């Protein structure tokens, strides 16, 4: 039975066409997935239904009648509620205060009557917070939610906040609930819980629309799938009639290989040793507690954990960005048997190291540079005649990012916040390539030639779609931005490469390119730390997985021998609780 219908919806932002003539209908009581890559216009379309945007042309019908939805309140009046990707809750308020926020006395009275299932006989109805809390609880019991009306938002986990958003919508009596990327920030257990809730709502006759780009979830939960691509409606299919490969093909527009390649090469020597690392976050709270691990060359170490488990702080501590930290971080520069160079070492330092007996000649005899002229030494070094006896061991504890670079340590970092940290959105491609290298060269004037070459090379090799090299980076799509950032970071042939959520918001093709690049780096001997959220990817790409839970290591497991469920268990393990 048709319930909601979109007819030729078009929505344009400036020059971007977010939706172009989209038409399809939604049936009452179904779970419908809207599947599409980032930027395919699925959120925009549902925002039209949720009252956030208004379509530029086209019509929306609810129960066969044309409606114009100006605001979320209008949407509620038509029985439509939306849970956005970024929750809209007042942090300082309690759960129940957020639920009743904005509801008038009349509205509350109606809600009470609806939950009671009969018109109230009382003339005067008390509409207090506590009264509402009782009704909300009653409603939650019906759906099987846990609900603590007095818990403050800032004390809640992501999953609890999401549940509260759903409660908020149900309390207002919605028949249709739109969930925008609901699983993006949840653990595997939380996702299971959410899906139970969705099933309960369906049982109750509610319509649920789930916006997502995850194929496996589509298969698991929905009755029908609407596929969108580049702002256009592609098709609607019954979930049980299609497999994931077909869906992916519909979503991307061409056949793609969904296998991630992991090369099986043995790890080389130790590259980074982290001992007893404790880090406080910017507010001074403990974000990481007593972290110990060793990272090897030719290895991808995955970091798993629910969001804010200390992933960010771990990477920032290693790269020297986190200030408030204790413990030891040691970098081992693989120099054994390799020639010394003038890279970050001058004649004086080389002489001093020779005095300490750090070098030998190719034939194994020790090097003494006493009595040799600068010219002779320069010649020996440039010809690669002077070799290291052993690996260089460099203490990174309490080093600033600039100090680390000045020590000649090639440590690259692709941060989570691409445009706020890794790149500058308002600068062009060349100037962004310059970020890592602008200090090079004598004098106070910038030299841009090399950055220009690098930008050209990355654009060509990684197929970055950009009008030209002087385009602002912020104007590029997410995938292209990430290609630039990763390209720049691996261009210095790093010894250690740290990537945080490198495929977040990327289309499938770009994501697979990133996986490929990381694997290539691994083959070149780079030690890689990969912070990810998609457990399937972590299992397929990495060699070992370090699971963080509440800032502590819950376990380090072999990716080839573990399962998603085991990692999920470790992620939600709460070590600290027994102490409290």
């Amino acid at each position: 039975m048709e319930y909601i219908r979109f007819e030729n919806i078009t929505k344009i932002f400036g020059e971007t066409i977010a939706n172009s003539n989209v038409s399809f209908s939604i049936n009452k009581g179904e779970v419908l997935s809207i599947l599409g890559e980032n930027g395919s216009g699925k959120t925009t379309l549902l925002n039209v239904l949720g009252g956030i945007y208004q379509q530029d042309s086209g019509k929306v019908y609810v129960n066969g009648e044309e409606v114009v939805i100006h605001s979320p309140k209008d949407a509620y009046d038509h029985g439509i509620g939306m849970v956005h990707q970024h929750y809209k809750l007042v942090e300082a308020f309690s759960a129940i205060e957020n639920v009743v926020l904005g509801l008038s006395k009349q509205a509350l009275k109606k809600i009470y009557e609806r939950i009671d299932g009969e018109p109230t006989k009382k003339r005067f109805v008390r509409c207090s917070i506590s009264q509402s809390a009782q009704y909300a609880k009653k409603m939650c019991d019906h759906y099987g939610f846990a609900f603590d009306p007095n818990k403050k938002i800032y004390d809640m986990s992501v999953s609890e906040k999401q549940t509260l958003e759903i409660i908020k919508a149900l309390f207002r009596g919605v028949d249709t609930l739109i969930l925008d990327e609901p699983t993006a920030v949840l653990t595997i257990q939380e996702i299971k819980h959410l899906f139970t809730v969705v099933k309960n709502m369906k049982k109750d006759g509610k319509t649920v629309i789930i916006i997502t780009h995850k194929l496996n979830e589509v298969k698991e939960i929905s009755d029908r799938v609407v596929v969108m691509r580049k702002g256009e409606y592609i098709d609607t299919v019954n979930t049980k009639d299609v497999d994931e490969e077909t869906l992916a093909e519909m979503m991307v527009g061409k056949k793609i290989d969904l296998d991630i390649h992991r090369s099986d090469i043995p790890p080389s020597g130790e590259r980074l040793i982290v001992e007893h690392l404790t880090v406080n976050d910017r507010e001074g709270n403990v974000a990481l507690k007593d972290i110990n691990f060793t990272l090897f060359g030719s290895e991808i170490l995955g970091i798993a954990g629910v969001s804010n488990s200390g992933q960010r702080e771990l990477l920032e501590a290693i790269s020297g960005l986190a200030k408030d930290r204790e413990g030891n971080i040691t970098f081992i520069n693989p120099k054994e048997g390799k020639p010394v160079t003038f890279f970050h070492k001058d004649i004086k330092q080389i002489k001093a190291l020779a005095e300490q007996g750090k070098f030998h000649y190719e034939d194994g005899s020790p090097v003494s540079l006493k009595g040799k002229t600068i010219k002779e030494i320069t010649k020996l070094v440039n010809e690669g005649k002077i070799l290291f006896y052993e690996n260089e061991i460099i203490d990174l504890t309490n080093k600033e990012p600039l100090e680390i670079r000045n020590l000649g340590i090639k440590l690259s970092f692709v941060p989570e916040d691409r445009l706020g940290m890794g790149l500058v959105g308002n600068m062009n491609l060349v100037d962004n390539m310059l970020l890592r290298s602008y200090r090079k060269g004598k004098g106070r004037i910038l030299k841009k030639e090399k950055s220009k070459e690098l930008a050209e090379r990355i654009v060509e090799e990684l197929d970055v779609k950009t009008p030209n090299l002087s385009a602002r980076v912020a104007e590029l799509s997410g995938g292209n931005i990430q290609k630039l950032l990763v390209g720049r970071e691996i261009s210095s042939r790093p010894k250690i490469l740290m990537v945080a959520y490198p495929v977040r918001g990327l289309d499938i093709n770009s994501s697979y390119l990133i996986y490929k690049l990381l694997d290539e780096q691994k083959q070149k001997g780079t030690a890689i730390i990969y912070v990810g959220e998609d457990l399937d990817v972590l299992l397929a790409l990495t060699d070992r997985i370090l699971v963080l839970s509440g800032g502590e290591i819950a376990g380090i497991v072999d990716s080839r021998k573990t399962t998603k469920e085991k990692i999920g268990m470790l992620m939600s393990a709460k070590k600290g609780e027994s102490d409290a």
Partner: protein
Amino acid sequence: MLEKIKNKLGHFPFYVTKRMGFSKLKYWLIRAGGILLAFLLAGITCTLLKPGSFGLFFSEMIRGCFDFSDISSIIDLLVTFSILLLISTNLTPTFKMRFWNIGAEGQILMGCMGAAAMAKFMPRDMSNASVLIICLLTSMILSTIWSLVPAIFKAFFNTNETLFTLMLNYIASILSALAISQWIKSGSQSFGVLFNGVFPSILDNTGTLVVIISLVIFAGLFVYITKGKYGYEVSVLGESIDTARYIGINPKKVMIRTSLISGVVFGVIGFMIVCGIHQSFSPTIVGGQGFTGVLIAWLGHFNPMEIALFSFLSAVMQQGTTTAASAVNISSTQFSAICTGVFFFIIIACEFFSRYQIKMHHKEKVKEAKEI
């Protein structure tokens, strides 16, 4: 009326949205139109005050600025232009860093005060050149203090630099009034003309050297902003403090260094105003150029070439309207200020309407609401 429609509709009948895909040519045509309109309005205002003076106003305006037979008026124009240019260009790095320094007026005034004090109190038998050097150093030091203090507070205590620099303007103004009342015992409140510490005349005008020095410093600032490593660090820091830290920039250091450089240049400006242009001192000697500079830097989108254009137009407006006003016997000294104000107002309006546009909500509904 609007409120009524708003209540009926649940929102205002119009809304403001960002304009997209506006061509550069169109943008500059609108700006050019705005500039013409501003000059036209100045002429109309003049005609309203003195009927029939419309033609005379414009001919006098052109004569006041571009009379090549009168070299001194050309130099005067160039002095106004180059001082404005230097102030706004010097503000650019701090603005690019998102350090909203609106205290240029006070920072320059402190420099002026330092230069004036030294020029007045150094022994009269000292050579002019040594007095000039002492004046320059003193003005640099005072301006730098005025510029550096808010930067240090911002860097270490994250205080609001806009309020801080604004307040320092008033302190500078009151300090200089106090200084004059202390220096001049007769109570005439007039500082008089400097005896020593005066710029040498070139082309019979002490302003010539001001123009030369300003343009040389402008060239230096141009390279610093557009081609230098420091300028690059400033831009990165302004865009994102996290990016700056990520690539190993120390935000505190850059903030303080940038303010230090800008303080030194403001010192030179103050020195030139006192010793080169006026050879005198008063608490209003900067004459609002510090604030005009802020406006020009912003209207020029922190681009030195655009800044040069607006500094020039603003100088023409100021000098031209002053000459024209005296030629048509407008006695008010505020006429020129009003014209310059209108000029900036129109340019800002152009800026707004080329970035944003006003759109109506569903026309029929607004109509309905109006009818009811």
